Structures are given as C-alpha cells and as structure tokens.
C-alpha cells in the first residue's frame, strides 16, 4: 500500500516537473506586475500588448506559412517516397534508405550549418524559401517513417488485386494504396507540423531578412529582457495546442467507439 503511494507520488512529481514552467507562464500572463515574482492583480493587458506587437504577429504569420507549406510539401513527397521505397527497386535505393535517417539522428546544429553552407554555395537568398526548404529537409524522414509503418501492415495482395482488375501503377497508388495510408499520413503530417512549428536551431541558421519565425522572435524577446507579453503568447499557443489535441482525441475516441460497435 505504502509502495503504491510512493509510486504515485513519483509519477506526480515527474508531471509536476513537466508542467511547472508552463503553469507559471499561464498564471503570470494575467499578472499586473512586470516582474513575475508575486501575483499582484489580474489583467488582460499583456494580451493587448501582444496584439499590438506587429513584428511578433509578422513572425507568427511567417511561422504559419513556413510550417504549413513545409508540412504540405514534406507530406506529399514523404508519402509518395515511402510508397516508392516500399514497392520498387531502383538505382540508389539502398543509399537513399540509409541517408534518410541522417536528418533524424545528426545534431540539428550540424544540419543547420550544412544547409546554410549549401545555400551560400548555391547563392540562394536566405529567406522564406530557404527556411521552407530546410524545414522540408528535416520533416520528410519523419513522414516517411510514419507512412511506412502503415504501409507494411497493408495486405500485399491488395495491390495485385488492383492490377488484376485493370489498374495501372498510378491508379494502384492513387485509388487503392493512398486511401489506406491516411492514418499514417495524418500522424506524419502532425509530427512534421509540430517539429516545424517549434524549430529553433535550423531556422536560426537558415532564416533571412523578412523571414523571422515565431521561435526566433521569442528567442530574441527572451534575450532582450522580461516581457510578460511572452507569457501571454505562450498561454495562447498552449491553449491553441490543447484545443487541437482535444479535437484530435475526440475524433479518435469516436472512431474507436464506432469500431467497437461493429
């Protein structure tokens, strides 16, 4: 019995550790005091300040563009590639399969500087384009792995059946394989999106003028002093993420229930 209490206490402490800084930020985003030490009074002022900060909103817009575009591109390329790598043999496939793990395991900073060097070599303007390209670069492998895990579970005879019924290679992929990959594609895209949304290190090296992203902006805000509007911003981001997560899990619950009924 005592054991159980101790175990639960340990679990609780770990969660306390995980949630403490977030809790602090949320609470103090409503604090009238600038110094964050004692809670002096309730206010929405920091939210107002936040929405008047044009460069922050600009950074938010940039982040959304970069994340959405890079997620879209990496999801398309990743899904197609996962299928191609699963289904076909072609020149260089073995090498490609090995290379794909590199962006996942190498330190982000090395990926960042190597991309920066290559952009300089190719005389590319640092900006939204290079930023999106870099985000695509680190997202694709995650999408591929996620889609691959669903692909390997598909009935391999399904593809034969489609061919047998007169489908060509494109139709096999589009009409038969793709619809069955949807769960893998969604989770891959979600992973790519969150990674892109939160990326600091790679963006730090590959962003240029006019392509400041939210994490970079927050980084410079934190570095230049105490700004309670950062608290307000983090609260908004937190609520937003929670909202999406709850939506997703409700949808999943419904699906599970529906399947259970059948």
């Amino acid at each position: 019995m005592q054991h159980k209490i101790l175990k639960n206490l340990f679990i609780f402490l770990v969660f306390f550790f995980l949630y403490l800084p977030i809790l602090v930020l949320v609470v103090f985003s409503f604090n009238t005091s600038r110094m964050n030490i004692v809670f002096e009074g309730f206010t929405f002022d920091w939210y107002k300040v936040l929405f008047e900060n044009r460069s922050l909103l600009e950074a938010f817009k940039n982040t959304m563009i970069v994340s959405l575009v890079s997620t879209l591109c990496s999801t398309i390329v990743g899904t197609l590639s996962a299928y191609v790598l699963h289904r076909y043999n072609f020149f260089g496939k073995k090498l490609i399969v090995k290379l794909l793990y590199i962006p996942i395991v190498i330190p982000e900073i090395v990926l960042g500087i190597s991309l920066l060097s290559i952009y300089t070599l190719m005389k590319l303007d640092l900006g939204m384009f290079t930023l999106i390209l870099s985000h695509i670069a680190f997202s694709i492998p995650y999408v591929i792995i996620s889609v691959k895990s669903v692909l390997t579970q598909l009935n391999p005879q399904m593809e034969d059946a489609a061919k047998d019924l007169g489908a060509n290679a494109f139709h096999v992929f589009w009409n038969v394989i793709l619809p069955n990959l949807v769960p893998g594609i969604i989770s891959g895209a979600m992973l790519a999106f969150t990674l892109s949304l939160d990326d600091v290190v790679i963006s730090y090296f590959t962003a240029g003028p006019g392509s400041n992203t939210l994490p970079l902006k927050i980084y410079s805000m934190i570095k230049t002093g105490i700004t309670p509007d950062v608290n307000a911003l983090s609260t908004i981001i937190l609520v937003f993420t929670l909202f999406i997560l709850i939506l997703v899990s409700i949808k999943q619950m419904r699906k599970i229930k529906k399947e259970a009924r059948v």
Partner: protein
Amino acid sequence: MNRIFKRLASLPISFYCLLLILLPLVYIFFLSFLKSDSYGGFTYVFTLQNYLKLFDVVYLKVFAQSFFIAFITTVICILISYPFCLFVNEKSKMVQSILMTLVILPFLTNSLIRTYGWMVLLRKEGIINTILLNFHIIKEPLSLMYNNLGIIIGMVYTLLPFMILPLYSSISKIDPRYIEAAKDLGASKLTIFFKIIVPLTVSGLFNGVLMVFIPCIGYFFISDLLGGGKLMLLGNLIKNQFLTARDWPFGAAISIALLLVTYLLVRIYRKSGGEMDDLGGL
C-alpha cells in the same frame, strides 16, 4: 505508363536525398579540409590544420564540457525515466494512454517558451527562491541558473520525453509473465530489474540515450539562456564559427567530429538490437 510512374515517383526522394542530405554533408566534409583566411572566407588549399586545431587544449576543453553536460543530462533522464515508465506501466491501459499523452502534451508547445518558464522559476528572485525564502527554508537565495545546474535542468526538461517514450514503449512490450516467473524463482526486486527488465529494454534505452545525448551537445540556446553564456558547449562553438568568428572550415571540422560521435552511438544502438525506424518518434 507503369515505368513512367515508377521513374517519376522516385524522382523527388532521389533529389531530396541528393540535394538536401548528401550534398550538404559532403560539402561540409570538403570545407573541413580547406584553409580559412582571416575574417571571412576560405581558400581552396588542402589542410589538416582544422582537425589539428581540435586537439588544442582550449577546444578539447569545450568537447569535455559538452560531453560532461550531455552525460549528466542523459544519466538523470535515465534515472527519472526507468521508475516513471515502470510505475506507469502498472496502471490500467486507459490510464497509461492518458498519462503518456500528458507526457507529450507540453512538448507540443514552444520549447523556448518553456525554457523561459524555467528562467522565471530559477532566477535569484524567481519563484523557487522566493518561496524557499518566505518559508525560511533557506537564508540566502540559491544559485539555480547561470551555471551548470541551470543548463542541466533546462536540458533534462527539454529532452526527458525523448527518453521516456522509447523506454516506455519497450517496457510495455515486456511479457509480464517473465517478471512473475522471476518472482516465482525467488529473484529480488533489484535482480528482476537488472537481470530481466534492463536486458529486455536495452534497445529502448539506447534509443533514448541517442535522442538525449546528441541534441544535448547541439542545443546552444539552452546554454545561452540558462547558462548565462559562461559555459561554451560544442553547439555554441559551432555557432560562433559560422555566425561570428566566421571560420567555416573549423566549424565544419567540429561538425564532422560531432558526426563521428553520432555515428558511434548509432552503431551501439544498432548492436543493441534497435531499429532505425524507432528513432525520433514522438
């Protein structure tokens, strides 16, 4: 038609691997053998000077500091994650999945913002010190950040889920009958842990080690924000070479050294029976 589809469909991935993975790394490798000129560029002269420079005591110290921080962070993550995962694994399936979602949740918010939350907590007049002072637990405020402690707290916090998730996934796969059998045969709890649980979760463990140790070396922003810029880590050193000192060849050489370390860890992970596909999955 079918051949055309195959060709077309394999193009994007080939281009991607070639242009965004292989080329940058080959170029960095190439750069690392070039001679840097003062302030700025590099000349196309072959030299090993950049690698020799790595063995300068000053830079060896930076390696040592980085690995020390990464090592301590990894050990702490392991010490937290094992009991946590084991205890969570004892709960019902429903509770388990809720708890694991709760582990992931904070990491869907911005990592810098969370780091900032720690700054608010750990400052000299921050929340923790204020509370401890008010309850007269301490007389002088504790130095919780702008030192190694701050860096390690930040690193552990940011990287903990990368240890918990793979470890949990391999612990939850252990057949409980093994543990029952061991108990039946009179094994003590410690024996069960070291002789059964650890060997069965070794690939999950190394997965976690890989995903904690390596990023730890490169996360310059945590040592910048929580370390007060006093401790130079490899990430900061590389960043300086590329963004301030502008000695790209030397920065490239450090990166190659870092890649070697990464490769070594990946080999160990593969030896432990780990699958590449299990890496980096949140």
